[in-house]
């Protein structure tokens, strides 16, 4: 017989264990997510509410003195933003990698420190590569012809 503390005594949880061993561990966050989805009919109630705000409809507000509230322009814009983000995704922010002057100066200093022969050799290699690139067919960019955006 195995020792009382041995791992050999462990066995998987079965529904029959519920009465004397209780519920198995469940992640609280997962439970909360499932509850919200269930209560809001997979989010439909929240979306409906946001649509009512977007359209400027009067909203029942039991906690307020007037019991009803009308959304302001700011509220409606927020609702539009909320809905659009969920329908179309957050807008992509395009940042062009610019060539800052500091980096250019650094390259110029580095190039100036090279002997002239090395600069000419580097230039020849680059020119050759550029000539080859000019002759090669250009790859199709992602997102072209209605494809998915990069």
């Amino acid at each position, binding site marked *: 017989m195995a020792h009382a503390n041995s791992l050999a005594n462990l066995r998987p949880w079965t529904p029959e264990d519920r009465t004397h061993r209780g519920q198995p561990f469940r992640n609280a966050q997962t439970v909360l997510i499932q509850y919200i989805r269930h209560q809001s009919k997979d989010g439909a109630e929240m979306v409906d509410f946001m649509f009512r705000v977007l359209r400027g409809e009067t909203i029942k507000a039991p906690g307020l003195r007037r019991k009803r509230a009308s959304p302001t322009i700011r509220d409606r814009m927020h609702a539009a933003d909320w809905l659009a983000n969920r329908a179309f995704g*957050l*807008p*992509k*922010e*395009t*940042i*062009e*990698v610019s*060539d800052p002057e500091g980096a*250019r100066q650094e*390259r*110029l200093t580095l*190039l*100036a420190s090279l002997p*002239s022969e090395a*600069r000419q050799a*580097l*230039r020849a290699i*680059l*020119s050759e*590569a*550029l000539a080859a*690139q000019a002759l090669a067919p250009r790859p199709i960019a992602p997102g072209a012809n209605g494809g998915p955006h*990069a």
Partner: protein
Amino acid sequence: MRDTVLLADDHAAERLVDEIDYVERATAYATDPWAWLAGCVTTVDELDGANPVKPFPTGVCRACARYVGGGVSQCPVCSGALVPLTYLRDLARQWATGVPPLLLVPKARRMRMTWLFVALHVWLALQRPHAAIFFVSSKEEKSAELIERAHGILRRLPPEGGGGRLGDHKNNPPRLLLDNGATLTGVAEGADQLRQYTATAILADEFGTWNWPRAAFSAMKPCLDGGGRMTLLSSAWPGTWAEMVRGEFLG
């Protein structure tokens, strides 16, 4: 958090080639004053009302006798062949060596000699940090005019030729300060004008017409003894200048 799309630099290779060419030009300009004069320097022709700013002349058209600069191989007006201005080129390269430290240049008008030497002193100021360079004329107003020429040259330089390196411009006395600490100062002739300074180079314009050329030369001579250089320009003039050119001057 918003998605971010980084656009790769599609022209990095072309840009690097341009930068190599830039460094090659800058290196050539730093080592060869004639290349710098031909590629970067502009002069002002007061007689040409339509287009007074012109590239420094490097050739003259055989057909129409027009000065042509900018490194072109034929006259832009009549397409005639150019005769290179070798006297300017040889003087520039000789002067750049600093040997001999005293250079006497007898000249005639419209030979571009003043422009040449003003530009060469600007080149020296660009290449030598903390150089103290003086333009000396018979009056301070005339020296100021030389400083103005130097100022114009500096303002119109391309970046690879030293453009954007002018630090300060003062009028009393006329003085240009560069970013490397070099100065170009205009002073009037006189034995006491340069006594308090240590000069790297002195350009004396129209030296023959000065009132006291011998005394002024004696005051400037310690510049030569200390390792500097002196360039005396003048049209033909009797007296001290004529003696110096003929080799009879013992000052």
